[in-house]
């Protein structure tokens, strides 16, 4: 799994590439912790290149969501493949996260 960040004005777009599972989610957590250290308050997570996410990946995302809430930050998710979207829906997390079709629509009014 690879994580790359792109700054767009005051927003950070985090693109993830590869499966998020028990082996890779600790690395994702480290990447997310870096956001807190840098006090980044607006984050878009791009899931376009994520074919699979397991419960540890979802939990890592929830933890980021909780942290962002604490600092009054904003988190958006975009470009979620159908298979991953199903996992969000089964776990009802689609109601928790703001999910957008693509980066452009996620950036709109952010």
């Amino acid at each position, binding site marked *: 799994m690879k994580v790359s960040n792109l700054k767009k004005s005051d927003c950070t777009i985090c693109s993830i590439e590869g499966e998020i599972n*028990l082996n890779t*989610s*600790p690395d994702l*957590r480290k990447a997310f912790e870096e956001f807190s250290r840098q006090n980044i308050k607006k984050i878009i997570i791009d899931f376009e290149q994520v074919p699979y996410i*397991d*419960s*540890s990946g*979802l*939990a*890592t995302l*929830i*933890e980021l969501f909780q942290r962002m809430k604490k600092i009054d930050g904003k988190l958006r998710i975009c470009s979620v493949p159908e298979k991953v979207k*199903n*996992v969000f829906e*089964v*776990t*009802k997390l689609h109601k928790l996260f703001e999910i957008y079709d693509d980066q452009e629509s996620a950036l709109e009014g952010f």
Partner: protein
Amino acid sequence: MEEKEVIISLRNVSKYFQGKKIIDNISLDIYRSETFVIMGCSGSGKSTLLRLMTGVIEPDEGSVIIKGKNITGISVEELDDVRRSFGMLFQYSALLDSLTVEENVSLPLREHTKLAEDIIRIIVKMKLSLVGLRGYESYYPSQISGGMRKRVGLARAIALDPAIVFYDEPTSGLDPVVGGVIDKLIKDLSSKLLITSVVVTHDMQSVFNIADRVAMVHKGQVVIVGDVATIKNTKNPYVQQFINGKPHGPIDFFKEDIGIKEFLEL
């Protein structure tokens, strides 16, 4: 038509206990994300079949193939690896009474992963939410009902996102309504999370509620495999006697019993 992916395959499997053939040359394929029910009378060999599939015991003849890997005769380490893709719901839930609901569900995560405590705590909440037990984290097994304990057991069984969950008599000892709740959960996990469910039961209501396909085992052999309609409509006298709970028929408990003289060794 889309080819179905075989996830569990038994090839000519036989098992003997004390010289008696308990499983007799069974070959069976179970497909990904289906709910496959194994039914049969007590002593028919259905639980032995489950133990063979989970690698608890090895066949004396034939092979058991899980996700393309023959688990017969592999090392303990390799078997542990395969088992990590299983979840198991035991007949009596097998929760540890001295641990809370949260601690019970988190056990496999603590044992098999190096995830941070905060992450484990969130996963446990997610799993408890999936089985409808949000808010019960701090309860002890003795403080909740039998049906709830089963659901905690199920949350623990799916803690590691298994590809396959094995259920041993999941509705036994539960009232019909709670049994129906467990049935719905099994069905939901299969359809939504694409988990393959292998259920051993003799609860006919449960069979008809959840099964995509059913196998009936009698005297260590598979009598029939088919969908629910096939099972209901078959003229096979063993199946008809079993599903209708008739005391008399080809499944004759008394005929197999040894006489009193032999029993007393006279």
